[in-house]
């Protein structure tokens, strides 16, 4: 099998140029779908008979929660690729994924807390899902903190990749144990999402938002990665050309 494409995938320049073509389309579709999904969820989906209108928060909360968990795996896979094949681009993706993942986890936490106020009458309840989210947030913060702590970029990349992998092994265990702990201490009767009971009229806007968030995640990841690539490759010819520098003029100096 020809592995050329895989090698090329690791080339920052190739990545930058391919994504340049993709970017306008992706931006357009992402924003359009997110807009459609929010309007649908906010105004056109029927109100929940138990929770009233406050349940409309799930159209934001659930996709954010999905993505924060999936984002951790994206980060872990990127880290593993970086460690195994020493692919620098993978580490760049890993770094970007950490920031985006932490932001989305934060969004999921905040929206969960705001939903809790009208529903349980309290900003914070030790609900299994929200507690797991909080732990995930801590895991993200740990990875970011470790990345920032090292001066040497290589060491920062390698150590945080190992930490993400260790975290990946642990996440299912943490989730299971938090679930178990929750059932031990009388579960709250109302849950933010009850997958089995959700009506199609609510499911479709939710699915739209989930798709929108996945696209948004890809978009943000690409944007962060592109910015980072330019910084890393600042002394190369193609970046200079990209900035509109007369390349031949510069050569005459040598």
């Amino acid at each position, binding site marked *: 099998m020809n592995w050329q494409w895989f090698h090329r995938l690791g080339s920052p320049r190739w990545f930058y140029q391919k994504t340049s073509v993709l970017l306008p389309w992706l931006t357009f579709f992402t924003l359009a779908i997110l807009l459609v999904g929010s309007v649908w969820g906010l105004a056109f989906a029927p109100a929940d008979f138990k929770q009233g209108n406050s349940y*409309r928060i799930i159209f934001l909360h659930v996709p954010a929660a999905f993505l924060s968990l999936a984002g951790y795996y994206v980060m872990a896979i990127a880290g593993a690729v970086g460690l195994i094949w020493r692919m620098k681009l993978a580490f760049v993706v890993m770094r970007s994924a950490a920031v985006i993942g932490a932001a989305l986890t934060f969004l999921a936490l905040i929206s969960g807390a705001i939903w809790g106020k*009208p529903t349980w009458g309290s900003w914070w309840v030790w609900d299994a899902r929200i507690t797991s989210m909080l732990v995930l947030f801590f895991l993200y913060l740990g990875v970011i903190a470790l990345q920032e702590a090292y001066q040497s970029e290589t060491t920062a990349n390698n150590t945080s990749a190992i930490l993400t992998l260790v975290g990946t092994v642990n996440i299912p265990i943490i989730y299971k144990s938090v679930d178990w702990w929750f059932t031990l201490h009388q579960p709250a009767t109302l849950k933010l999402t009850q997958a089995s009971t959700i009506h199609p009229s609510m499911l479709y806007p939710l699915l739209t938002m989930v798709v929108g968030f996945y696209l948004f995640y890809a978009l943000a990841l690409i944007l962060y990665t592109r*910015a980072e690539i330019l910084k890393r490759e600042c002394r190369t010819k193609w970046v200079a050309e990209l900035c509109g520098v007369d390349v031949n003029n510069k050569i005459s100096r040598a």
Partner: protein
Amino acid sequence: MKFQFQSLADLVAMSGHGPYVWACYGIGLLVVAYLLITPVRQKSKFIRQLRRQYAHQAAANGRVDSAP
């Protein structure tokens, strides 16, 4: 599929849950905007910086070339 509220004011109020729902979506918008704008700004700032650097270099070269 139909519009679930009597009026626009109803939509804003959401039978009392309005502040919570709108606050959530507001924060959501902020997070989304932050994640999209930060890298774009970073990039353009970096390109500007790089351009200035190259211009500086070119100017320095010009002086060297014209020196006797």
